[in-house]
């Protein structure tokens, strides 16, 4: 394996060292993106079996659902928002569980 110490930089390498996304950006990305993928699949499967113009609780579909394009779009965003909610909850639960499992070093010291 190569040595671990970082090599000296050559003169033209004046760009800042690349660091990744902030925690917030990562959180937003991992919440929205899996939900987006799941929504795409869900929309495909759902509307393969149900024609949006035949949906609706009553005999006649609500007015906003009468164009199929509107039905697909509303369906997609519905699935996406539910997926986002699920992702966000998962992230929250994983995060909070992790905090509880943190070594109790900070707590054993007691209040200042």
């Amino acid at each position: 394996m190569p040595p671990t110490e970082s090599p000296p930089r050559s003169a033209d390498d004046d760009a800042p060292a690349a660091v990744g996304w902030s925690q917030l950006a990562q959180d937003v990305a991992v919440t929205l993106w899996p939900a987006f993928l799941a929504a795409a699949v869900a929309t495909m499967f759902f509307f393969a079996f149900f024609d949006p113009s035949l949906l609706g609780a009553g005999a006649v579909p609500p007015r906003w659902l009468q164009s199929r394009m509107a039905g697909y779009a509303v369906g997609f965003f519905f699935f996406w928002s539910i997926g986002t909610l699920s992702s966000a909850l998962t992230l929250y639960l994983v995060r909070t569980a992790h905090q509880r499992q943190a070594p109790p070093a900070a707590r054993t010291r007691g209040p200042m």
Partner: protein
Amino acid sequence: MSGPAGPVAAEPTSLYAAQQKIYPREVDGRFDRLRRLAVWLLLGLFYLLPWLPWAGRQSVLFDLPARKFYVFGLVFWPQDFFYLTWLLVIAGVSLFFCTALAGRLWCGYACPQTVWTEVFLRVEYWFEGDRHRRIRLDRGPWTRGKILRKAGKHTAWIVLALWTGLTFVGFFTPIRQLGAEVLALATGPWESFWILFYGAATWGNAGFLREQVCVYMCPYARFQSAMFDRDTLIIAYDPARGEPRGSRARRADPRAAGLGDCIDCRACVQACPTGIDIRNGLQYECIACAACVDACDSVMDRMGYARGLIRYTSQQALEGRGTHVIRPRMLVYGALLGLLIAGFFVSLALRTPVGLDLMRDRNALYRTLPGGRIENVYLVRIVNKDTRRHRYVLQAAGLPGIVLDTDAREHVVGPGDVYSVAARVRVPAAAAHGSQLIRVQVRAVDEPRFAVEREARFLGP
């Protein structure tokens, strides 16, 4: 082991730190040319396919408003969704197969994220110059020149992104009509919305997020290691040859100075779109784009060293053993893939291009005709999934003396059309009691193998 791939330090101050931009350096070389070729091919296919006519209509059209999918000569209906699922499974297994064989070829050459990023980088290069100029431009004050360059870049990006959005929507609604509507600024609300939505996604993903998507958002990047083994093709730095690294005069003999072949010029690091140092070993951020290979090869050429200090190789080969292409994993993936593809085409070839739906007339359960026969009425839907017009006849079977009668004897259904007709099924009173199953068949007169049968319930006294 060094740990650039380790978790981000969890210091509270770093939580909302601004992201530092990566300025990938332009490279030229074998693999860069290969990628450009792939980009031209794939984007050419994407942008041109919807404009290509086929038998009087768009060659590839997933007509969502009409719920019909046209793929060249084939017409798919929502009932044929099974084929789409099958195709997705084939795509998934192909990805497994290719990954096990050749690593992340998909990421480096074919992923839409890579392909559009490549194009957007090219546009950025036209307006802002090479890596060094871009860094200087971003650091410099907002002069007239900087504003013009940035405005020009974004205008070109936005035009490209909107064109991409239009093309994307053009796969789902007829593109010629859509193009005319765009020129007249008369697109429907949902078409406009999706063009803008997809355009904005392209602009953001290819212009700003770039390879950070691969690092933070791509699930494949995380689970691809499960498909890797020691014989998989990877991009790797050869530490045995390169270390100890260090700068030296061009004519100096590295062996005499106690140095390896790596001159530590960091060309590989600067070329990397995800900002990693390949010399630290295989990292999940590596999308195997081979930009570092091209960058290093050009340096090796200049130094007069052999190429391939960074190269496509396998873990086995790096350790001085032979690479096995044929191994159990490849055989299993390959056999599975072969079966799936063969099955797909066989079932597509055997597909009956006619569909039949039966619905009972809800007004009356049954009717007794003069002369004592019992009649049930059904609403019959004939779906012609073929690309040609056909004449169909309907027949009923399953009870003695059963007769099916429609107003016309033959039903002419155009390609891709649905045709509804009321069918009166009559059975002698002696044969009709209670609820019995009958069979109704539709058959193309001109193509007898185009026939399907459905069961229906016949009600009598």
